[in-house]
């Protein structure tokens, strides 16, 4: 039987946001572009008008576009700001950065950011990365320029979500032993890449460290206050099963303090524990479970519903090249004025539209969806 302790994790989006998300919260939203975005919590944040958010994500931009459009983002850590549907660069975010409404933005690449989330998930002091080297990602450190990196007089970090350095470049103490392709005892490496400039003697690099060596960038862990992810099923005890592509969601869900999971359906624990190796997140990591069918709309949830491309096209039509007030107005009408996500889904989207996105079990999406007309 279900104990009352377990029931404590289940709550409405309203409760979850009230409890865990405050102005200035460092928050990571899961999913990737049009896949499994946690729109239910994000929309509730817009409804409650929670401002000055410190948003971090790998692979935007639907959620972040909405939050920027509603004027709620103050700081942004990001890798990518594109939006599907005819907007190569997400408009509201671009406007907010250019005008200065988003005050600080720190850039990473997909790999270095992923390594940050991995370090956070594994509880390790840092993770190595062989990218970002030789680029301006290393040279431009926004948080440092803003005086946010380092410690206060009392020894605390200035901001618990901002590491004292953006990168640290070291010389590989193992002298390039692990770089691929390499030579094994039994022969040349079996992998397909052909270049390894340290082997070919092309490299004699003294950059960054001032000494000769194999350059490796170390990245600090990402540790937000709140991580939000959307899964297909979550058990009553918190066990999470994500179906389809995971993207950032394993690492980016487990690196923070609080994990909120929104799902299509809350199910009995026995259902997911029957095949435990198919589950990705153990129960104890989850602090809040929010059930909202169709809540990822307009993004896709494999095996349940497809993304609604017409929403994206319509968004471009309504908002592109418009002044800031018009953009904010769009999000006010579209989301803020709704009471909750059921109100949004019934009255802004419509049941018929939602069910038209239902997926085919073989394809995991809707192969008959006419997206472009």
């Amino acid at each position, binding site marked *: 039987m279900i104990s009352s302790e377990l029931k404590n994790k289940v709550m409405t989006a309203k409760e979850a946001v009230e409890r865990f998300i405050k102005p200035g919260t460092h928050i990571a939203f899961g999913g*990737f572009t*049009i896949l499994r975005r946690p729109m239910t919590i994000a929309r509730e944040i817009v409804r409650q008008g929670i401002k000055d958010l410190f948003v971090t994500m790998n692979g935007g931009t639907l959620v972040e576009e909405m939050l920027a459009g509603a004027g709620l983002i103050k700081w942004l850590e990001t890798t990518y700001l594109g939006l599907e549907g005819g907007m190569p*660069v997400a408009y509201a975010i671009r406007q907010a950065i250019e005008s200065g409404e988003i005050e600080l933005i720190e850039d990473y690449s997909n790999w270095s950011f992923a390594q940050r989330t991995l370090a956070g998930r594994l509880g390790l002091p840092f993770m190595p990365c062989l990218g970002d*080297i030789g*680029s301006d990602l290393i040279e431009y450190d926004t948080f440092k320029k803003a005086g946010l990196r380092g410690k206060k007089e009392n020894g605390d970090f200035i901001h618990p979500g901002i590491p004292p350095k953006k990168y640290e470049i070291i010389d590989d103490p193992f002298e390039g032993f692990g770089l691929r392709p390499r030579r094994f005892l039994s022969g040349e490496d079996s992998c397909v890449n052909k270049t390894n400039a340290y082997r070919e003697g092309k490299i004699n690099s003294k950059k*960054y460290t001032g000494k000769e060596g194999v350059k490796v960038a170390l990245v600090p862990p990402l540790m937000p206050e709140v991580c939000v992810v959307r899964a297909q099923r979550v058990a009553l005890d918190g066990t999470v099963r994500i179906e389809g*592509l995971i993207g950032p969601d394993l690492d980016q869900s487990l690196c923070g303090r609080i994990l909120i999971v929104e799902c299509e359906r809350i199910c009995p624990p026995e259902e997911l524990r029957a095949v435990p190796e198919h589950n990705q997140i153990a129960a104890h990591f989850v602090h809040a479970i929010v059930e909202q069918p169709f809540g990822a709309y307009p993004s896709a949830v494999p095996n349940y519903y497809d993304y609604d491309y017409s929403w994206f096209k319509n968004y471009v039509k309504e908002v592109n090249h418009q002044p800031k007030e018009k953009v904010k107005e769009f999000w006010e009408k579209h989301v803020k004025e709704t009471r909750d996500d059921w109100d949004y889904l019934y009255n802004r989207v419509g049941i018929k539209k939602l069910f038209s996105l239902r997926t085919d079990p073989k394809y995991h999406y809707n*192969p008959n969806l006419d997206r472009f007309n």
Partner: protein
Amino acid sequence: MPLDINVKEYEEYLIKMGLEKDKYTYMELLAVATAREMPDEAFAFVGTGLPLLAAMLAQHTHAPNMTIILEAGTVGPKIEHIPVSVADPRACYQASTLSTLVDAFGTLAARGYCTLGVLGAAECDKYGNLNSTAIGSYWPKGVSETGRGPDVRFTGSGGANSIASLADKIIAMMVHEKRRLPDKVQYLTTPAGMRGPKGETRFDYGLYRGGELVVVTDLCKMKPDPETGILFLDEIYPGIDPEFVKENTGFKLDISRCRVMEPPTEEELMILRMKVDPERIYLGRKPKRKE
């Protein structure tokens, strides 16, 4: 390559779409030009749109053993319906494995299974450095001296920098305009080519992979000179004047070595139209160049 395309169906399709079997459109030209740069047996990191179309065309023609990898964590999908994003469930169909970003860049790319990357950018300079971050001062308002952020903010690196740091070869796709091809990019998001002169090359900075680059634009293909690392005009599309290309390049472009590319063949066009993008979702798009 023998294919199961019905000749009569193709003829009907041509009439329906207002196309001719030996005449190509702008996007078709770009797709073919790019596909030809993709070697067989490549492990190609591509994004959706033209790069994916080119990869699928290559798989159907000279590169049947190419594996497509999508940076969100997808390995070797057999795509049936055109995806709009690398995380689109359509791009996952019949994949070998689906996993995470850490996997895509670690287990695949760094581990040695990233031989080719296809990237786009807002700016590309003479050393093949790409800028997809910002124009007009990078700094956001909180730390800038202007009271504002950059003049224009683009998408940011996404996977571009990561892929360019790990791939043996990069194909960079650009619109060939003077302002997009400056002498030096305003922000170095991605070192896709040599990066700079001796002492400032990608290898001097410690990048251990890469060096091979081709910049595919809507007018031509450029490659870095093996000695200087500076882009020169390698192949020009049929009917394009090299002087026009030079005029539309912000940096000084050497046009003395250019050859004319073979136009898209009827077979390439047929495969592109009937197998890769029959609904012309990407092929039907208009040129970005401002006339």
